[in-house]
């Protein structure tokens, strides 16, 4: 194997010149570093503590998911997508199943849709909880991590009861669901909502008005709405910059149009706003689940899909609002049982591009805060 990209690739001309021509310090952060959330490697160019520019080196977790997809049947590939954004595996599965359903021209029955929404929104909460814990830990608040993990456990328990797995759930099948909900599923979900509502306040109590937290996050990693759009940044990061855009509202998939919820937005596009947006999003998730759990209709859980799936020749792009942003699948079918090409449009990968812009002129400590606030998962960045 050859060495990954080396320092010589840094584009020195395009970056800001250091103050007083002092020797700038090139520091290599990662791939083994406590705060890079996996195996992200960031090469920082510093003037003292100030960041002059940085370059991300990614690919340490590349597993060739897209190539694997070309060698598996449509059903066989389904569990693989869970391994991309492993903290939001259910969302990945939803995106993939819906894309293939589009290709096959089938639609999941209403009961499956409701259960899908419940599980996906629970997953959004779980993903945001994990984000909150690790983000706060990066900034130095060690306690929220344990609070969020304690509460995330309750979600994982529901998953475990539903499908036997906790993290990479493989909860959905093409055309609907594999399993009927277990007895007491609705009660469990309702109990969780009652349990979780005060917990959001507890997180907020620890951080929202904490003076140090506010100082560490306000005006840090600012990105404007225009820049977000130009860089293709989506999800809570985009919304915190004031762009009220959520695929669940803009191009409703599954049955999101049946639910009443708000899209929380921020104004300043800084780390603090992104924190507030995600906290508000968790509350909205609770709202959606609340509406969904009371209204699960009776009926079949899976549509009539052929045992051997052979979609007609064609190509489909379909995307959903994953916890991190727009998660898209572009699948090309050549009429055989295997996809001819599976392309994943990963939100983390595209969002990570904004890191350089957001960190210029900030301090080293802010780089950590910004990596945290982008909420990347390296499994998804590298695929």
């Amino acid at each position: 194997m050859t060495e990954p990209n080396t320092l010589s690739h840094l584009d020195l001309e395009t970056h800001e010149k250091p103050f007083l021509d002092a020797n700038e310090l090139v520091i290599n952060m990662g791939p083994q570093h406590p705060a890079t959330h996996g195996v992200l490697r960031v090469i920082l160019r510093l003037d003292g503590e100030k960041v002059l520019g940085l370059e991300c080196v990614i690919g340490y977790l590349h597993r060739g998911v897209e190539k694997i997809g070309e060698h598996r049947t449509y059903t066989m590939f389904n569990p693989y997508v869970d391994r991309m954004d492993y903290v939001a595996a259910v969302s990945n599965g939803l995106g993939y199943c819906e894309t293939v359903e589009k290709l096959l021209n089938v639609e999941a029955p209403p009961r499956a849709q409701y259960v899908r929404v419940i599980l996906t929104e629970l997953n959004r909460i779980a993903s945001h909880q994990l984000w909150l814990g690790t983000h706060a830990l990066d900034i130095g608040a060690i306690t929220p991590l344990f609070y969020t993990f304690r509460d995330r456990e309750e979600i994982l328990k529901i998953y475990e009861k539903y499908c036997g797995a906790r993290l990479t759930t493989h909860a959905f099948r093409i055309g609907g669901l594999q399993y009927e909900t277990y007895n007491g599923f609705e009660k469990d979900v309702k109990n969780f909502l009652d349990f979780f509502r005060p917990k959001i306040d507890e997180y907020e109590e620890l951080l929202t008005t904490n003076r140090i937290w506010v100082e560490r996050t306000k005006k840090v990693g600012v990105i404007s709405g225009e820049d977000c759009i130009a860089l293709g940044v989506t999800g809570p990061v985009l919304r915190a910059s004031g762009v009220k855009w959520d695929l669940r509202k803009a191009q409703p998939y599954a049955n999101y149009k049946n639910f009443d919820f708000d899209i929380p937005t921020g104004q300043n596009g800084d780390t603090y706003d992104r924190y507030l947006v995600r906290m508000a999003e968790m509350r909205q998730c609770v709202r959606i689940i609340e509406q969904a759990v009371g209204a699960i209709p009776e009926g079949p859980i899976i549509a009539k899909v052929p045992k051997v799936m052979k979609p007609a020749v064609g190509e489909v792009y379909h995307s959903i609002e994953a916890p991190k942003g727009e998660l898209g699948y572009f699948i090309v079918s050549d009429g055989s049982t295997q996809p001819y090409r599976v392309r994943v449009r990963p939100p983390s990968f595209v969002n990570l591009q904004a890191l350089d812009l957001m960190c210029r002129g900030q301090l080293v400590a802010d780089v950590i805060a910004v990596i945290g606030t982008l909420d990347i998962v390296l499994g998804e960045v590298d695929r």
Partner: protein
Amino acid sequence: MIAKFKGAYGSGIEPLTYAGQNYMVVDRSLIPEILQVLRNEEQFDYCVDLTAVHYPKREKQFDVVWVLYSFARNERIRVTTQIVDGATLPSSVPIWPTANWLEREVYDMFGIKFDGHPDMKRILLPDGWKGHPLRKDYGILQQDNEWVQINLGIESGQ
């Protein structure tokens, strides 16, 4: 919009629909202009994705696909063009900065070069990687064999 384009560019554009999704196959020569027009006049300000598909049996081996979205119109469109192996495309980084990493990934996986890209190099795979894995004719075991031969001095058992 499609009709307007058809009128302006004639046979260079072939508008298609599949599963309710619009896309158009555009001749390689029209690509720079079409993308520019889509961005500036039709308000497709968000480049969602940029990828490619390899058809080794065709003469023009590659489909390159831009997935675009317009916030103003809440509409998606895909632009597809076909190019031969070894041909280059103009970089769309000046139009959509987000294309930077996406084009690098296409280069990494398919070996399609983009002219005018600020930093055309591999992104997910190491710099010294041989071949472009998402091409259909890429041997999955090739890199493995080489590593085993160099480091262990034996033939790979795979």
